[in-house]
């Protein structure tokens, strides 16, 4: 599972750094688990860990660096007490989205491989 998390994390990082499309967190874990993982729980975990860690980690990195001012203002716009809430929400969106993606991929793989496993 750790390899899966690391692979997804790496691929997500590369794609996020080279394109502005946000939806990779819904695609990459799905693509990985549909090929490599048929257990839904593990698929959820792979996706959630990779997407959540990446988005939360990047948000925290920016929060403590260049984005301190803009997060203050966006927090005020959103009516939240502290900008850290924005990092948390970002991490949660990454975690839930990528987790769902990983789970969906694993569920599809599970269905695809069901007959093969039954035959054995």
């Amino acid at each position, binding site marked *: 599972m750790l390899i899966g998390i690391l692979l997804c994390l790496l691929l997500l990082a590369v794609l996020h750094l080279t394109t502005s499309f946000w939806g990779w967190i819904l695609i990459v874990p799905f693509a990985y688990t549909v090929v490599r993982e048929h257990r839904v729980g593990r698929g959820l975990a792979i996706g959630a860990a990779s997407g959540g860690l990446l988005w939360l980690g990047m948000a925290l990195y920016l929060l403590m660096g260049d984005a301190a001012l*803009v997060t203050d203002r966006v927090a005020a*716009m959103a009516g939240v007490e502290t900008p850290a809430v*924005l990092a948390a929400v970002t991490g949660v969106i990454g975690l839930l989205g990528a987790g769902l993606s990983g789970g969906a991929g694993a569920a599809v793989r599970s269905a695809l491989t069901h007959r093969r496993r039954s035959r054995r």
Partner: protein
Amino acid sequence: MRWVVPTVYVAALVVAFVALNGRWGQTPPLGPFLNPFAGFWQSNAQVDALPEQLDVPGLQAPVQVAWDTRHVPHIFAENDHDLYLAQGYLTARHRLWQMEFQTHAAAGRISEIVGPGALSYDRSRRRMGMVWAAERSLEAVLADSLTRVAMEAYAEGVNAWVDQLDATTLPLEYKILGYEPEPWTPLKTTLLLKYMAETLSGGSNEPAMTEARSLHGDSLMQALFPYQAPFVDPIIPPGTEWAFEPVPVAPQQALLDPLIGLNGLSGTPADPNIGSNNWAVGGSKAVTGRPILANDPHLTLNLPSIWYEMQLHAPGTNTYGATLPGAPGIIIGFNEHVAWGVTNGGSDVFDWYQITFADAARTTYDYDGATRPVETRIETIQVRGEATVVDTVRYTHHGPVAYLPSETPYGRMPTGAALRWTAHDPTNELRTFLRLNRATDYDDYVEALTTYAAPAQNFVYADQAGTIALWHNGAFPLRWKGQGRYLSDGADPAYEWQGFIPHAHNPHVRDPERGFVSSANQPPTDDTYPYYLGWDYASYERGARLNDRLAVMEAITPRDMMALQLDDRYLHAERALPALLARLPEDGLSADQRTARADLAAWDAHYRAQATAPILFDAWWSTLWRLTWDEFPDGPRPWYDVTLRLVLEEPTSPLFDDQTTNGPETLDDLVQQAFETAFSQLEDRHGPYGEAWAWGQARGTRIDHLAQIPGLGRTDLRTSGRSGTLNAMGRTSGASWRMVVSLEEEVRAWGIYPGGQSGHPGSAFYDLAVDDWMAGTMYPLLFLRAPDQASAEVMARTVLRQTP
């Protein structure tokens, strides 16, 4: 069955994508917005980076840029084309969203961004003919070689920056509001200039005045809304000789009895006292022996800031000052020889004409005993999330008919009336500013002003040779006295404007004996001026205070001028308070009220942020004012100056009687009642009399974001001053740019505006100067003579390189 679970998962995944990718009400799409690699997180301080080189398509030669410590770009180009291209590029780099949003507002296109909530606003812009006017002016701008080069190069520069943006580097507001920039065109610049014209001259109280006249009659209106307001010290010193033969003007016509819908438009008009000041003192009054010029235009404040500082250098020009993001050139500033500044002129250049349509379909209208065809212009308003709205605007020879009798107007516009406005004419104001940027003497300054039409401004001027001057400048219609004060008859040719006052006849003064020139939005002249310009100007307080101070000041330094811009003494309070206190006996007052009364008695009429007397005087006077003018419940009410004259000179006037009671009330009754009411209301709002009543806290000033996005503005600013003091601060308005220029052998200047160079909310330069501005600090302005000039204030240098 084995596909049930994956189907549910995949469906949930699709729903998640749609939900996170879509916009829900005012909430930005959460997926793209929160994406830490491209969303709002990336609209961060990286925008403040100053690269050594930038590739800018379209340049004819490299352009050198020196950045000072406040991120003001000092641009050195080899020709005008590159100068304005670089100006457009660098301005867009800092202010693109603001530039575009303002032009969308001017064009009536906000619904495209925010949806149907802005539809009535957008329709009003179309009905006012804003785009039509901008298109007409564009023709004039492109017909002049200087302004054509500037406009086209500026647009090229803006577009060079737009082309370099991607979803990650888009300014924050685009991410919040969920749209993308479009190519910049010269039309957008003329729209921006019309937007300023509309802000400064696009209002009228004719409908309200017409309604009030129908209720109260001519004589009372003449008495309470006089052509020459009391106590005024006009811009042009009384006694100035009018060295010209006036153009004859046709005599006054009968006043029109209105037939058209005024629609309860009798609310108080926009406050003319929002306040701007400019002045210049001659060398005889300055410690350096050279003129000093000061200007602090007051406007409704926003972030990103209204102005953007720049220095522009090319062969034939080296100028510094405040630019309007979206327009080439310097609007208020100085060069190596001269300095100039503006205040709003306030003369009436905006008239409504009652239209009598000749047929039910409104395809023709009556004029001069015949009918004329109505022209139509189809306006297409795109509305986000809804169907496009197609609107037909009818045009007469007067101008656009804003609203038909059956329609509900936006704001304070009448129905069934056509608008005649100088800003509709094909004029070229931009040329004025570009010529001022290059002016070397008084003749250049006057020549520059000749093409300026709208909005009418008071252009103050000073030069190194020692000349000081001020022109009340613009295109002023030739009219009989009072024409345009009420609605005009659109069917009668006698109500037409009779041409324009020749430019040379515009009120102006050069090197007056008193040693200074000044303006504070007050009437430009006394009643010896042979033309009628209007009547609804700022009241006397600021102009009189300014002239009083300048008259007695000697050996003036630039510091003295800066201090004068911060002057918060309110002449109205100084004059009214003794009369009010004399009518407020201590008997019957509570202990707190007696303390407050004593504080008022000891008060010096300065509106300091920490003083408690100002809020009480303000509430007391405004309550008395409302009680006095109960005859005008919805009215335009006679302003403070007229009321004060009544209090001081006619205290037994029957106008002080409350019409809603049986017994006669006197001024004393009203003064005491007003004090009780005001004190009680302030207690309800701020608690017991004490520190919480401090002016700066109780009144407060805020600077909202241009699109009113919460969190992107500044609130709770504790400022001194009020409208009516030279430091004319309001709840949402104030000095948008303070500038002092000393025309010494090497020009020195100081300036500040409430904001910062960057329009990016994630930048450290977004609101950098707000606290210093509030404290009254001004920064020395770095005026370079060469691109490589050494200066500790230069923090970085960038070369803009041409690319194929």
